[in-house]
């Protein structure tokens, strides 16, 4: 068993990609990507479709093997199951067995962790108590997503990696998740999230990393990103979210 001490977690990046290259045949999905997420930090990974965000998350979680470079989670090899004991994650596509209830799925997932959250507490926190007895495979898209996010927190993680966590959520659920993520980060947790909702990145992220064509084209705070793209809050007349959107479009070569 691998012991993940506070020193191991706190003294270095909680999640790290270093010079990662990943190709699928002729297609180069990642080209020398560097990425770090520290304790108490929420990093938003942004970029257009096909930029390499999901591949980067896959490499970080040990599901994809890089052709070059390295990935570390909590200072350890992410392909080792024991490394993931303090990590919660949701893949881009969520789906659950038709024949298990929501509570059974939560009970099942929490068994994998050394200090899991109790199922009733977890379901209550994510507004799923009312559907605890329903078949998990029959939930609506929004509830399915909410359950997926809840499960990422089942093991009381130090790091959560969320691939488009709020896709399909209604506004209230999205804002509710934002509050949970803010509290988690304030408590020293680390978050890496990919999202297409720029207002989400703007509202939550301590840092933004912009991927385009498999490369990091910008990273920094929202203000730094917008400034680098030659924009400022004053430059864009509408409220703040389009400021980041404009910057992303400029940095990734999209039209504005």
């Amino acid at each position, binding site marked *: 068993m691998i012991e993940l001490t506070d020193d191991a977690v706190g003294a270095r990046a909680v999640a790290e990609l270093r010079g990662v290259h990943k190709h699928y045949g002729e297609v180069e999905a990642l080209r020398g990507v560097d990425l770090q997420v520290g304790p108490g930090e929420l990093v938003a990974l942004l970029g257009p479709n096909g930029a390499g965000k999901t591949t980067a998350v*896959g490499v970080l*979680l040990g*599901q*994809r*093997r890089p052709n070059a470079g390295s990935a570390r989670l909590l200072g350890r090899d992410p392909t080792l*199951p*024991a*490394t*993931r*004991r303090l*990590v*919660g*994650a*949701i*893949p881009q*596509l*969520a*789906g*659950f*067995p038709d*024949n*298990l209830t929501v509570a*059974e799925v939560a009970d*099942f*997932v929490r*068994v*994998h*962790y050394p200090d899991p959250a109790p199922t009733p507490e977890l379901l209550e926190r994510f507004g799923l108590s009312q559907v605890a007895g329903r078949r998990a495979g029959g939930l609506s898209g929004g509830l399915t997503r909410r359950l*997926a996010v809840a*499960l990422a927190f089942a*093991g009381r993680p130090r790091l959560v*990696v969320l691939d488009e966590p709020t896709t399909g959520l209604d506004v209230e659920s999205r804002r509710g998740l934002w509050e949970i993520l803010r509290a988690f980060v304030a408590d020293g947790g680390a978050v890496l999230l990919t999202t297409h909702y720029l207002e989400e990145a703007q509202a939550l992220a301590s840092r933004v990393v912009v991927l385009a064509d498999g490369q990091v084209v910008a990273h920094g705070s929202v203000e730094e990103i917008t400034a680098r793209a030659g924009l400022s809050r004053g430059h864009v007349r509408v409220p703040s979210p389009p400021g980041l959107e404009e910057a992303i479009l400029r940095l990734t070569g999209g039209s504005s």
Partner: protein
Amino acid sequence: MSVVLAHFKEQTLQHLRAPAYLLPTLALPGLFYFLFEGPDTEVGLVTFLMASYAMWAILGVAFFQFGAGIAEERATPWERFLRTLPLSGLQRLAGRVLSAALFAAAAAAVVIVEAHLINPVSVAAGRWLPWLGALGAGGLVVALGGIAMGYWASPRAATPVATLAWLLLAYLGGLWATPGELPGWAAEVSPYLPTRLWGEVTWAAVQGQAASPGGWLGLTAWAVGFAVLALWGYRRDEGASYR
């Protein structure tokens, strides 16, 4: 161990609540035994056929729970989510195997109990252990075949492939009648099939005869072949999906 038990429970609950799985595995072998083989009075024949139908029941679990089950699940979001958990492939497999063992025992038990209720079957006290041992050993071989099928069949083709293989191997292996009743072409193929080889060692055990070494050797060869195919298929799937 608790993780393995959790996967055993997850697999068992899922299959218990799936009529499409329960019907062929738990109900059909017992139903077919009743419709085609009983009630009868010939002790030797009904005992022989009880052993055959118990094998067919176990074969169904191996092909549907491993073959169709793995093939259909391996591309699902749920399986992808499981990859994010602190979980090894071996723990997942152990949970599957335990669950399948439970269903295989239940499926065989349905046939055995039914045969005892409707027919004058007779298994001497000293033959039970060798018989159940032969059933279990052959069950492991066909389970490996099921796992290989699960990694080579496409999700959409898996259930038809499993059904076809289940029916053909039962018929050609002589599990539905006796091998002597097979037509010429089938009789020529039959001795080389895993179900027939499994039958040879199981029939010998239930009848208190010594099994020919050829039966065990043949079964071992199939086990090695299936294991190689399963491992190859697993690595191929890992390469395609996760590397």
